[in-house]
């Protein structure tokens, strides 16, 4: 393997790992802020003690996750220069701006106000303290916005010109109002709410099942988390649908690839499963729902959807000879099904949990063993998030910036395969190691903490 492949692998591993924590930060920060708002508006003395403990309980889980997200984010910030120096040179005039703005407008407020929040319980007024976590939540979600502005440019360049062999910014407003940002950001925002909310549901379910003293408070938490997560799941589905429709114009190659539609068809069928033969540019066998793909794109059972082979011919006309099909159509196809399948499963699970805590409260005791098994389902939103990013990034290949620069020429020319092997193994090892310790610390904390009115 050469430095290019290894650098891609390293970027994939570190980004996906980073994005395990990011959605939790995005969604859980808002949920903890909501909990604290509930706390400062609550009445009786006993209620206040319990709610404060609850805020600190989910606050602590949030902080462990937040720390993991922050440290893995530093790697990403430096990665563009370390492994992708030619990309940084080509794109710096455009890509650097949102990255610097992310640091200036989001990282500073996140990191400063998280410190105030952790250590400020006795030093700030209740309202000011609550405001701190809202500011953290705002900062986290703002940082996601900036980085997705940068990523959207790579997927769909706008507001630029090519001068002296590099891309330069001509219109900042166009950059941040890139239609790609709308779909990508809303999808990521709601994915955050879903992931954060679902984590609260799982933790609450487990506490309801195993900790009788705290059961009452976790049932009440679960009710709120169910509503919150439901909003997230519906939002993620709506924004995903909207974004897929946009892709038909914005990046049809990506759309056709994750649906493995090789030839242009009208009406286009949806392949439920397919045996993909990328070399031959066709599916060897497939199970189809007629007209369904057209319906997803056009809201109507007829309408043309362009196929991969035709898009390849168009790309050759536009960019000269070359292979412009993402090199892992099979991976994208199955990732899409994993993402949508996980999303559908989440919708169902959240609905069932909602019925349980809202309408069958008295019967919760009969279902404790089911609730205790809920942690098995925790990977679902994380699978969906990772699969979603895989589609977004693998679907951009062979380009690093669609139409402007290929991934193959973006890698740092001074790196040897040996050097990248060292860092690839190093990052992977420390990430695995820290994941074990962080999860261990979180589980021990969840296990021993009780939410009761005793001081």
């Amino acid at each position: 393997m050469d430095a290019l492949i290894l650098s891609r692998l390293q970027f994939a591993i570190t980004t996906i790992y980073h994005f395990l924590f990011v959605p939790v930060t995005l969604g859980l920060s808002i949920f903890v802020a909501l909990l604290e708002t509930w706390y400062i508006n609550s009445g009786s003395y006993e209620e206040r003690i319990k709610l404060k403990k609850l805020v600190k309980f989910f606050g602590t889980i949030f902080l462990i996750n937040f720390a993991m997200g922050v440290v893995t984010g530093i790697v990403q910030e430096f990665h563009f220069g370390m492994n992708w120096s030619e990309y940084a040179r080509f794109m710096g005039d455009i890509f650097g701006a949102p990255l610097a703005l992310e640091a200036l407008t989001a990282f500073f407020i996140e990191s400063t106000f998280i410190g105030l929040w952790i250590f400020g319980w006795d030093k700030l007024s209740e309202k000011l303290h609550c405001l701190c976590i809202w500011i953290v939540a705002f900062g986290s979600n703002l940082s996601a916005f900036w980085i997705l502005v940068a990523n959207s440019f790579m997927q769909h360049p706008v507001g630029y010109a090519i001068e002296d062999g590099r891309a330069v910014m001509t219109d900042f407003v166009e950059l941040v109002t890139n239609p790609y940002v709308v779909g990508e950001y809303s999808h990521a925002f709601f994915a955050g709410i879903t992931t954060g909310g679902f984590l609260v549901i799982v933790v609450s379910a487990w506490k309801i099942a195993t900790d009788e003293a705290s059961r009452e408070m976790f049932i009440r938490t679960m009710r709120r988390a169910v509503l919150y997560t439901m909003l997230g799941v519906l939002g993620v589905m709506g924004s995903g649908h909207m974004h897929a429709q946009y892709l038909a114009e914005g990046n049809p190659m990506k759309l056709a690839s994750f649906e493995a539609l090789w030839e242009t068809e009208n009406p286009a069928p949806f392949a439920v499963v397919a045996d993909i033969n990328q070399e031959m540019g066709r599916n060897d066998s497939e199970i189809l729902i007629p007209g369904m793909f057209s319906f997803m794109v056009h809201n109507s059972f007829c309408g043309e959807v362009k196929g991969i082979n035709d898009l390849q011919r168009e790309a050759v006309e536009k960019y000269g000879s070359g292979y412009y099909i993402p090199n892992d159509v099979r991976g994208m196809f199955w990732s899409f099904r994993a993402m949508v399948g996980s999303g559908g499963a989440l919708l169902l699970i959240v609905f069932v949990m909602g019925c349980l805590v809202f309408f069958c409260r008295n019967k919760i005791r009969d279902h404790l063993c089911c609730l205790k098994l809920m942690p098995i389902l925790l990977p679902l939103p994380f699978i969906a998030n990772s699969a979603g990013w895989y589609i977004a990034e693998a679907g951009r290949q062979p380009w690093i910036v669609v139409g402007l620069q290929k991934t193959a020429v973006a890698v740092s020319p001074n790196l040897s395969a040996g050097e990248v092997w060292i860092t690839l193994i190093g990052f992977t090892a420390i990430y695995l190691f820290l994941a074990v310790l962080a999860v261990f610390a979180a589980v021990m904390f969840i296990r021993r903490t009780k939410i009761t009115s005793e001081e």
Partner: protein
Amino acid sequence: MDLNIVWFILITVLFTGFFILEGFDYGVGMMMIGRPVHERSQFVRAIGPVWDGNEVWMITAGGATFAAFPHVYATMFSSFYLALFLMLLALILRGVAFELRGKLKYSDWISFWDFGIMFGSFIPAFLWGVAVVNLLRGLPINFEMHFVGHFFDLLNPCAIIGGIFFVLLFAFHGANFLAIKIADIPLIQDLQRKSLRLGLFTLLFYVLFAAFAAFETDILAKLSTVIFLGISIAALIASCAGTYSGNGFKAFLSSTLAIAFLTIGFFNALFPRIIVSSISPDFSLNIYNSASTPHTLTLMTFAAAIFVPIVLIYQAWSYKIFKERVSPADVNYH
């Protein structure tokens, strides 16, 4: 004054802020070496509320370099590949350690994470020293701005002395910070004794570093740089005097100034270059051949003019909130 110069100054400001603020964070981490756990906990608590915000100065310096001088970002980070990797490992361990060390009460658990903090403070301090010296001393960079050397080119004697100098300077600065943040009087006195010794060693290495740098680089070519470094050394001496007389605020303020003027002097020596090429002066990266377009620089200047003051205001406010000294009783919290 054109925007390229404005951005060179802004990058200088960001690195100055970074070295001052993370300087004492790294220093506090290094001062934990060989201390009992209850003292280490107080040290961690002293920087607990602010270290994360301080670290963002480094991230912002990196991001701003990317935005304003993308070629510098590209060349620097790819040249220092393995060194940066080591620094990232250290920073990862350190960042997680702050959060996890207090989560379980086993002494092995706490010791492990404290090791992470010490390691994660020492390594970046050393490597930043090495990096900074190499920028000025020159890296084998060819006409395409590509690094054509290897890892061990970075570890020349001059750079290693620079690295040790940074370690000592930050440790001293961190000890000074602790002396004004800790409430336990005997502990402060003990720290100040150690800190005085550290300060004198720092001075020694400052002189050694200056001598090496004068020989191997053009750091003393400009009179203005000589003046800045002179102020910096004077501040360091004042800081030692403050430590000796038990005047903690004087000591900390002076070591802050020493770091500030060292950074300013260093960037002044570089100007208008940012990375020197050891192959040919024509291949050096400077504020013009490595910069973004005037359009992007203008945009970023507005952004910086608005947001940097806001950041300074709320970070200053957060320091004000946590201005009280940390007592041994405070550390049960974290």
